[in-house]
């Protein structure tokens, strides 16, 4: 009744090509962003920031990057964890080794290095696709795992093999409290979110989608597969690399290569599948779902077990979590291959014609 486009007439092409063509949508998104910047810091407590909000914001950024490669360009990647690691360690070395390096600059340099590595490991995509490509990206994963564990130079020759940063600040403002960390990451997420949304609507995004839907047909209409695929690898690994830098610098503070293991790659891929492949919104849904689900399981399962008189141990919890994850992946692939984002758009469609659906 309230959510509809009746009466909103477009008088220019510019108005017709906006990201959100319906006024209500525009206000809702602006409201959401304002709430995220102003409302959340007022309402949330420290636990919420540390356990949910900061991981969510960073992983949503990483999932956005993976979604560009997997969802928009259709190139399966199991090496996202490696690109995160490259971003993190490149940012670390830049930050540590260059005197007076600004934090944001270091993170972006990490992204650039991640881009280079991403393009390098994206080269096989010109020759193989599908499962073979997945294996090729796994090579990136295992190679990076090894390199950051064994080559001491990357960790600044620290004896324990852990890298750590402290006293982060931006323009003289320290980034210490959870609220500051959250806001810092949120800025990145919003900026990259808007950029990515515009990128996938532009010519290059359409090229990616054409390659995904049918590469031969795309080549026939004049899209260069090499350019399209490698640009998807580049953009994706840049965003993933910056997210890796944020994850290491802001969320962890001190970290080991295990933080970016193959499990992280799978986790990011699951976010994209569950959230919705080929949807910017879907990356956010997927990240939120995967960050929140383990916490919900951890809270509710012991309680549910208590109801029927079964004590649930921590090991059992982990296993139950694995089972629920696996079952959900399969269930989504069967029932809703387009993920949570599709449910969202179906909901919006229903709301638009409510309460008179005919």
């Amino acid at each position, binding site marked *: 009744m309230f959510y509809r486009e009746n009466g909103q007439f477009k008088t220019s092409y510019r108005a017709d090509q906006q990201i959100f063509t319906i006024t209500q949508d525009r206000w809702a998104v602006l409201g959401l962003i304002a709430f995220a910047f102003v409302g959340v810091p007022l309402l949330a407590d420290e636990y919420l920031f540390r356990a949910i909000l900061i991981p969510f914001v960073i992983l949503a950024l990483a999932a956005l990057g993976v979604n560009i490669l997997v969802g928009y360009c*259709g190139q*399966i990647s199991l090496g996202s964890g490696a690109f995160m690691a490259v971003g993190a360690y490149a940012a670390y070395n830049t930050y540590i080794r260059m005197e007076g390096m600004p934090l944001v600059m270091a993170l972006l340099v990490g992204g650039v290095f991640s881009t280079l590595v991403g393009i390098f490991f994206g080269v*096989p*995509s*010109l*020759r*193989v*696709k*599908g*499962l*073979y490509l*997945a*294996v*090729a990206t*796994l*090579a990136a994963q*295992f*190679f990076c*795992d*090894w390199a950051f*564990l*064994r*080559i001491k130079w990357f960790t600044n020759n620290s004896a324990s093999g852990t890298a750590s940063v402290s006293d982060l600040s931006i323009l003289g403002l320290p980034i210490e409290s959870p609220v500051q960390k959250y806001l810092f990451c949120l800025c990145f997420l919003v900026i990259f979110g808007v950029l990515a949304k515009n990128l996938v609507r532009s010519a290059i995004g359409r090229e990616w989608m054409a390659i995904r839907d049918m*590469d*031969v047909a795309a*080549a026939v209409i004049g899209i260069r*597969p090499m350019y399209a695929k490698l640009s998807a690898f580049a953009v994706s690994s840049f965003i993933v690399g910056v997210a890796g830098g944020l994850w290491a610098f802001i969320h962890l503070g001190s970290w080991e290569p295990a933080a970016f293991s*193959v499990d992280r790659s*799978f986790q990011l*891929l*699951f976010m994209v*599948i569950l959230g919705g492949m080929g949807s910017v919104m879907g990356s956010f849904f997927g990240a939120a779902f995967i960050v929140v689900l383990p916490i919900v399981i951890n809270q509710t399962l012991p309680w549910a077990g208590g109801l029927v008189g079964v004590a649930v141990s921590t*090991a*059992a919890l*982990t*296993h*139950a*979590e*694995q*089972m*629920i*994850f*696996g*079952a*959900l*992946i*399969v269930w989504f*692939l*069967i029932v809703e*291959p387009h993920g949570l984002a599709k449910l969202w758009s179906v909901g919006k469609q229903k709301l638009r014609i409510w309460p008179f659906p005919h």
Partner: protein
Amino acid sequence: MGFFLETLFGGLMAGMLYSLVALGFVLIFKASGVFNFAQGAMVLFAALAMARFAEWVPQWTGVNNVALANLIAFALAVLVMLVVAWCIENLVLRHLVNQEGATLLMATLGITYFLDGLGQSVFGSDIYKIDVGMPKEPIFVLDKMFEGGILINKEDLVAALVAAVLVGLLSLFFQKTSTGRALRAVADDHQAAQSIGIPLSRIWVIVWFVAGIVALVAGVIWGSKLGVQFSLSTVALRALPVVILGGLTSVPGAIIGGLIIGVGEKLSEVFLGPFVGGGIEIWFAYVLALGFLLVRPQGLFGEKIIDRV
């Protein structure tokens, strides 16, 4: 020279075990076009079932004979794998017929997580032993030619023998029985096979069951060597380059690919590792497979892929 040969043998034996896991990949890919990421989870699941049944059977039935208890446990584990195969077909694959390979790959990732969780909740998550009476003592061969001879584990030899017998049986099954012929028909073309009356769903159950048995054998051999524990499930990641190298559709490819990877890993670790800091065997296999992929995408023995990328 003696040391080199010893490393070589060690690599061959490790490669044999990779081959066993890779075999499971190839079987399922041949018959259903699914790249089964869950093979490692199936190995873990089967090995856990076997280990725990071998423990429980004497408690339940009072059978004291170890060999008999092991036999019953093995039969029960086979039964469990049949149930798993049936469930996977009925609950997952049936609903994903005609989907893209990538979707199916991700579905098997889901199955991996589910099986890992299920196996450990049902059978427990400690380290278990499988004792099927494999000879443990090492033997020395060729001690006339080299000083001290070459050390070989009898266990490895038995494992290699078992693997060889298994491959022989499987190729007989594929080539000579009518079910095997039906399997190959399904692998060639789902629709054509269906149109001449081959029941697709039953064939898939059979394939996953056979892959389950291969997983069980692999699990028993790995398990009796290293103990049954969660890390067994990551063996799938070690076996992936093997199938890429050997070709996704070739049984001999899985065997020879496994041997090449096994030998390559060991030799590179021993002779190349010290120069770059060690631990390179994990990615060496992948880089080997990756290099191969660029030159020959179908692998050593795979069918030629006619596909423009």
